[in-house]
């Protein structure tokens, strides 16, 4: 996790893992992970820099999309909900993080142009100029992602992230200063537009689960990102004062979603299978097949036979879905 000051680019917190005091491998700086949808704002910022072609309400086609290029396998991005949504306004395509619409938009603008935006946002790592990079096949560290979002959060002014202000002698005389540097990487207008779109992500999009934690008038902007099977779960968000990047995953690239677990309602009176209507009902995880099959009397499905109870089984929700309500 990385937290910075949006205006000065000063790093305020950097946590490398569950054991924050561990002095070795620091994931916030050293881990390079696929960023998933976190790169999408660069695509939309590139688009919104051309107001004659794109505005926040320009219809974008979220129909099935196939990208063929010589020397690379065909690329056919799917949406998270496995559906296509037809024509959607540009801001909705970002708020809902639609992959097909975004891939179409990105290839329409041109991968090279989008990568130029990524560089202007402050990412120095060379990203490969493939269409799949658009949807976040590129790997970055949380600190690099923080630099990218910092430039957006600061209204288009890029400031190199700093963790040290100055080095002083024992008497406090400064030996070396790391001065605040700003560089105008983007005109203010397109950055205002992308910020409004990213506020939409929190207000009505994939990060709306945050609304239950944050006051509405704070105007938080953000973007979620996940990779297949929740191997990587990202969130980048900012307000006027602070920017935070969070990455969650396993070092060995294991899926965070555990398929071997099911969540089952248990009636604590009988310790049998109940449902949410039972008094004091608990939703507990069970290893696949080990939950009680017999129903408690409080379960509302009348006359249910033991063999059909599997309909109440649902896949364990990941922490990600619990927070963001996806």
């Amino acid at each position, binding site marked *: 996790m990385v937290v910075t*000051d*949006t*205006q*000065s680019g*000063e790093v305020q917190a950097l946590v490398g893992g569950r054991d924050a005091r561990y002095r070795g491998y620091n994931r916030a700086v050293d881990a390079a992970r696929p960023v998933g949808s976190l790169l999408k704002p660069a695509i939309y910022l590139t688009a919104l820099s051309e107001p004659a072609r794109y505005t926040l309400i320009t219809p974008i086609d979220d129909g099935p999309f196939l990208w063929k290029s010589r020397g690379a396998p065909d690329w056919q991005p799917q949406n998270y909900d496995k559906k296509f949504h037809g024509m959607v306004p540009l801001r909705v395509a970002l708020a809902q993080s639609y992959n097909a619409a975004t891939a179409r938009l990105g290839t329409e603008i041109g991968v090279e142009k989008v990568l130029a935006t990524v560089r202007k946002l402050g990412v120095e790592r060379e990203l490969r100029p493939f269409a799949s990079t658009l949807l976040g096949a590129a790997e970055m560290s949380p600190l690099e992602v923080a630099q990218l979002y910092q430039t957006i959060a600061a*209204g288009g*002014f890029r400031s190199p992230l700093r963790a040290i*202000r*100055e080095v002083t002698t024992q008497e406090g005389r*400064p030996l070396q*200063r790391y*001065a*605040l*540097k*700003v*560089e*105008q990487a983007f005109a*203010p207008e397109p950055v205002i537009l992308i910020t409004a779109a990213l506020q939409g992500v929190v207000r009505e999009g994939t990060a709306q689960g945050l609304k239950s934690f944050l006051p509405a008038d704070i105007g938080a902007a953000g973007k979620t990102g996940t990779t297949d099977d929740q191997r990587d779960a990202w969130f980048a968000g900012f307000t*006027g*004062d602070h920017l935070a990047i969070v990455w969650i995953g396993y070092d060995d690239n294991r899926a965070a979603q555990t398929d071997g677990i099911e969540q089952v309602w248990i009636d604590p009176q009988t310790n049998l299978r109940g449902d949410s209507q039972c008094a004091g009902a608990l939703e507990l995880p069970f290893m696949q097949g080990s939950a009680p099959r017999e129903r408690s009397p409080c379960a509302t499905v009348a006359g249910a036979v033991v063999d059909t109870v599997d309909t109440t089984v649902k896949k364990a929700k990941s922490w990600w879905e619990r927070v963001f309500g996806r």
Partner: protein
Amino acid sequence: MLAGCATAPEPGPAPAPVEQAPPPYLGPRESVAVAGLMESARADAAAGRLPTAAASLERALRIEPRNPRLWQELARVRLQQGDFAQAESTAARSNSWAGNDSALRAENQRIIEQARAARR
């Protein structure tokens, strides 16, 4: 060439200013702490202690990051330091918070042009 372009608004031992900068604004918008830092930054800049002046302004900006006067003051120090690229972008940063304060914008524009001329 830049030696004559000092724009510190304080009277005192600063090199002779080519143009007179507008009088310093110490209005009610700054908190006491920030006004104090701004004042000491001006004194340091006038005395040629430019890194110290910049450090005070950065400290003030940590308190009031949206204060366009602080960004402008920092831009002026960068100009004096001969860091023209930073002078220009820092003045642009000031503009981004300046709203419709036309006097402030005009002064930022002056700094930007001066920085550009010096870079040529």
